[in-house]
C-alpha cells in the first residue's frame, strides 16, 4: 500500500491532531466552534474513508475497520455531548472553556482513536498515554481548587504506576514471544506452552488495565478523581474513555492473549466479582452524587469484566454493548448533574429531593437514567445486563451470573434512593437547574435514547457483535 493510501486511511487521526493544534492557537471565541468542527470533520473523514474490510496500516501498527469506526463515531458523539454539557458550568467561563481545555479534549479523542485501531503493543500504549496525558491536565486545570489538584496528582501517580505495570507486562510478553504485534502475539501464544514469564506478563498487564479502568482492588483513585476534579473534567472522564478502555481490553485480552484465556479468566472473575461487590456496597454509603456515580462505575466495570470472563465472541459482544449503554448512561447522568449545577452547587444526593415537584420533566429523565443503571426493563440497561448474563450462562458460569444479579439488587437500592428523593421527599432547598434549553434538550435526548434502544435494540446489538467480531477475527 502506498504512503498516500495509508495517509488517507489515517485521515481521521490526522484531522484531529491538526484540529487540536489550531484549537490551541485560535482566538478564544473560536475555540468551541472549531472543536465541534474538528470532531465533525473527523467523523466525516471516517465515513468518507471507511474500508470495506479490516485493513492493516503503517507496517501493521494500526488497523482500520468500518465496524470499529462505528464505535469511534460514538466516541466523537459522546465527546461533543459532554463538551456541550460542560459549557453551562459556571466556573467554566474561566479555564474550563479555554482553548487548552478543548485542545486536551480533542487530543484525548486522538488517544482513544489510536487505542481503537492499535494492532501493536507500542501503538496501544501510545494511544493510552495520549489519552491519559490529556486527562491529567484537564483535571488539574482548576488551579485554585485544592481538591482538583489532589485528584489530578492521585490520578497521575497511580496512572503512571499502572502504565508501568502495563509496560512491564508487555516487555515480558516480548521477552517470551519475540513480537509486539498483537496478531503475531496471538499466533505465537497459540503455539506455545504456558510458562511463568507469560503468566507474569499477563498478570502485570491485567493489573495495569484494572488500574486504568478502575476495577477493584485497583479502584482507589476513581472516587477521589470523580469527586475532586471539576465537573466538566469528570464528565469527560466518565463517558467516552470507558469505550476506549473496553477496546483496550478487547484488543489485549480478547485478541492478543486469547490463547491464555484459561489463565486470565480466573483473575478476571475475581476482579469482576470484587468490583461488583465493592462498587455496589460502598455506593450505598455515599452522600455525594459523584462519589456514588464513581462506585457505580466500579460496579459497572465489574459487569464488563464478567462479560469477558465468558471468553466467547458473544461475551465480547455483550461487553461492547454494555459499555456503549453505560457510556450513554454516564454521559446522561453527568449531563444532568451539570444542568443542576449550572447556577448553584447541587453535588449532594439530597439536592435531588423534591425535583419532581419543581421540575417534573427533568425528574422523569433522571428516573429513566437511574432505572437504566439499575437494569430495569423499559430501558437499555436491562438488555445490557441480559446480554452479559446470556454470555455468562452460556459459558457455564451460572454461579457468577447468580452472584452478579444478586449484587445488582443491592445496587438497585442506591439508584432507587435518587428516585425516591426526587419523587417522595420535599425539597430542602429549591432546585435551580440551568435554563439552557439546548442543554435540557440534549440531556433529555440522551436519556430517551436509552428507551429507544430498549424498544429497538437489534441494530445496536448487531453493531456490538460486529465490532467485537473484528477483535476475535483479527488473529
Amino acid at each position: 500500500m502506498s504512503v498516500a493510501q495509508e495517509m488517507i486511511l489515517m485521515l481521521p487521526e490526522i484531522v484531529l491532531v491538526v484540529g487540536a493544534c489550531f484549537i490551541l492557537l485560535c482566538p478564544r471565541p473560536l475555540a468551541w466552534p472549531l472543536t465541534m468542527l474538528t470532531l465533525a470533520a473527523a467523523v466525516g473523514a471516517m465515513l468518507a474513508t471507511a474500508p470495506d474490510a479490516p485493513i492493516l496500516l503503517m507496517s501493521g501498527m494500526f488497523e482500520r475497520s468500518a465496524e470499529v469506526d462505528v464505535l469511534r463515531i460514538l466516541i466523537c458523539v459522546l465527546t461533543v455531548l459532554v463538551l456541550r454539557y460542560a459549557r453551562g458550568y459556571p466556573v467554566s467561563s474561566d479555564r474550563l472553556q479555554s482553548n487548552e481545555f478543548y485542545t486536551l479534549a480533542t487530543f484525548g479523542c486522538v488517544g482513544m482513536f489510536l487505542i481503537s485501531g492499535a494492532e501493536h503493543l507500542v501503538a496501544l500504549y501510545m494511544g493510552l498515554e495520549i489519552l491519559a496525558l490529556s486527562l491529567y491536565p484537564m483535571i488539574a486545570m482548576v488551579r485554585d481548587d485544592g481538591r482538583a489538584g489532589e485528584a489530578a496528582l492521585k490520578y497521575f501517580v497511580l496512572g503512571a504506576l499502572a502504565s508501568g505495570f502495563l509496560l512491564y507486562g508487555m516487555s515480558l510478553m516480548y521477552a517470551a514471544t519475540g513480537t509486539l504485534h498483537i496478531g503475531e502475539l496471538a499466533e505465537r501464544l497459540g503455539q506455545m506452552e504456558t510458562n511463568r514469564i507469560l503468566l507474569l506478563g499477563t498478570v502485570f498487564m491485567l493489573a495495569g488495565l484494572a488500574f486504568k479502568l478502575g476495577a477493584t482492588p485497583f479502584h482507589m483513585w476513581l472516587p477521589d478523581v470523580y469527586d475532586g476534579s471539576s465537573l466538566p473534567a469528570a464528565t469527560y472522564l466518565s463517558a467516552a474513555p470507558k469505550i476506549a478502555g473496553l477496546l483496550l481490553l478487547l484488543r489485549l485480552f480478547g485478541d492478543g492473549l486469547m490463547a491464555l484465556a484459561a489463565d486470565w479468566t480466573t483473575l478476571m472473575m475475581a476482579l469482576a466479582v470484587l468490583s461488583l461487590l465493592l462498587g455496589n456496597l460502598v455506593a450505598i454509603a455515599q452522600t455525594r452524587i459523584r462519589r456514588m456515580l464513581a462506585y457505580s462505575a466500579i460496579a459497572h466495570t465489574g459487569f464488563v469484566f464478567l462479560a469477558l470472563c465468558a471468553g466467547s465472541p458473544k461475551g465480547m459482544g455483550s461487553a461492547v454493548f454494555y459499555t456503549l449503554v453505560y457510556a450513554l448512561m454516564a454521559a446522561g447522568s453527568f449531563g444532568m448533574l451539570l444542568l443542576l449545577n449550572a447556577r448553584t452547587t447541587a453535588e449532594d444526593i439530597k439536592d435531588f429531593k423534591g425535583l419532581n415537584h419543581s421540575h417534573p420533566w427533568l425528574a422523569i429523565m433522571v428516573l429513566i437514567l437511574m432505572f437504566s443503571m439499575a437494569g430495569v426493563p423499559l430501558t437499555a440497561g436491562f438488555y445490557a445486563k441480559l446480554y452479559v448474563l446470556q454470555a455468562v450462562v452460556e459459558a457455564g458460569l451460572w454461579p457468577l451470573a447468580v452472584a452478579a444479579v444478586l449484587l445488582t439488587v443491592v445496587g438497585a437500592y442506591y439508584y432507587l434512593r435518587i428516585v425516591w428523593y426526587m419523587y417522595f421527599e420535599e425539597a430542602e432547598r429549591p432546585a435551580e437547574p440551568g435554563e439552557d434549553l439546548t442543554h435540557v434538550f440534549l440531556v433529555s435526548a440522551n436519556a430517551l435514547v436509552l428507551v429507544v434502544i430498549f424498544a429497538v435494540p437489534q441494530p445496536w446489538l448487531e453493531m456490538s457483535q460486529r465490532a467485537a467480531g473484528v477483535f476475535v477475527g483479527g488473529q
Partner: protein
Amino acid sequence: MSLLGLMIWTPIAAGFATLVLRDPAVVRRWSLAASLFVFVLSLVAVAGFDPAAGYQWQYQTSWIPAFNIDYHLGVDGLSLPLVVLTAFIGVLAILTGWNTATRHITQFFAAFLILEGLLIGVFCAMDAALFYVFFEAMLIPMFLIIGIWGSDNRVYAAVKFFLYTFLGSVLMLVAFVYLALQSESFRITDWYALPLSSLEQTWLFLALLLGFAVKVPMWPVHTWLPDAHVEAPAAGSVVLAAVLLKIGGYGLLRFCLPVAPDASLALDGLVIGLSLIAVVYIGFTALAQTDMKKLIAYSSIAHMGFVTLGLFILYRLATETAMLSVSGAIVQMISHGLVSAALFVCVGVLYDRRHSRNIQDYGGVLETMPVFGALFVFFALANAGLPGTSGFVGEVMVILATFQAGWWLAVLAAMVVVLGAAYSLWMVRRVVFGPAEHAEVKAFQDLSGREMLILMALAVPVLGVGLWPVPLLDLIEPSVVQLIDQAQAFKAGGAP
C-alpha cells in the same frame, strides 16, 4: 395492532397523555374513559374466545432476533380471566382514586394507567422475555404509587416492595436465560417440551419459585406485603391485592408446573408446607391485627396460600380431583381479586371519613352508614367463604380435592375458612356493629354515588361467580386439562 396489543398500549399511551393534559378534571375523565375502553376490549376478547382452541388472539412478530425474542401475545383459559379481572379492576382503581391524590394528580392517574397496561401485558405475554419485561417494568409505577401517594411510612414500604420483588425476579431472569439457551427460544410453549434433567429442573424450579413466591406472596417472603398494603393509597392497595398478587399464582401455573414437572413433583411437599403455614400461621396473625388494612393484607396472604396449596396438591391426586383443585385455585384467585379489592375500597371509604385505619377508632358505623355497613358485611362474609359468594366456590373445590390427598391436609386447609370467618367477622363486628361511640363516626355520611358504584360493581361478579360459576369454569377447563397434562408429563423419568 392486535386486540391484546391495543389493550396493553392504550392505557400506557393514555397514561403518558395525561401528563400533557394537566387539568385534573379532564385527566380524571380521560383516565376513566381509557380504562373503560380497555375493559370493553377485554369483554370483546372474551366474546370471541373459544375455550377449546388453546391460545387465541395471538400476535407474533420478531422483536430482537439476536436474542430470539419475539413480541408474542396470546391468551388461553388461564390468562384470559385474569386479563378481564385486570381491566375491570383498572376501571375501579381509577374510580377509587378519583379524589385521593392531593398532589401530582396527573401523575397519579398516569401511574395507574401505565400500571394497568403493563399488568395486562404480563398476562398476555407468550414470550418469556416479554413477560419478564412487563413483570419488572410494572414495579416502577407501583413503586411510585406507594411512595408518592402513600401514608406516613411510605418510603420504607415502597423500597421494600421494590427490592423484594426485584430480588425474586433477577434469579428468575437467570433461570429464563438458562432455559432460553437450552431451547434457543424465549417462547414459553417451547419450554414445555424441553427435556431437562432432574438436577436442572430443581435449580430452575427453585429460581422460578422464589421469583413468584415473592409475588404471591408465600410465607416466609411475604413481609413486604403488609407494609406495601398499609402504606399504599386505597386505589394502590386495590390493584396490589386484586392483580399483582395473582401474577405470582399465574407464574406458578405458567412456568413452574409445566416447565419443571419433575421438580414440581419432587418439591411439592415444600410448597404445600409453606402454603399451609401461610394458611394457619398467617391466619392467626391476621386475627391479632388492629389495623384494618393490615388485617386484610394478612388475609390476602392466607388466601393466596390456599391458592398455591390448590395448585401443588395436584401431584397427590387422581386426574379428576386434580382438575377440581387446580380449577378451584384459579377460581379462588379471581374471587380473591374481587373480594380483597372490595375490602380495600371499604377501608378506603372509612379512611376518607375518619383518616384512621384502626379498628378501635370505629364502631357503630351501621348507624350512620347503613348501605355501606351492609356491603362491608357482605364482602367480609365473601372473604370468609360464605356459600353464594365467589369465595365459597374456590374454597370448597380445593378443600374437597385436598381430602383425597389426606384428611389432615384438608383439615389444615379448612382453617382458611375458620380463621377467615373469625377475623373477617370480628373486624366487621367491631367496626360496623355496636353503639357508635366516637363523635366522628356519628357524623359520617353514607356512600357517595361514586363509592356506591364501585362497591356494587364488585358485588355483582362476587355474587355472579358464587351463584353460577359454570361459565367461568367452562372458560378455564380446557386449559386446566392441558396444564395438568403438562404438569404430569415428566421429563426425567421421575413419575411416581
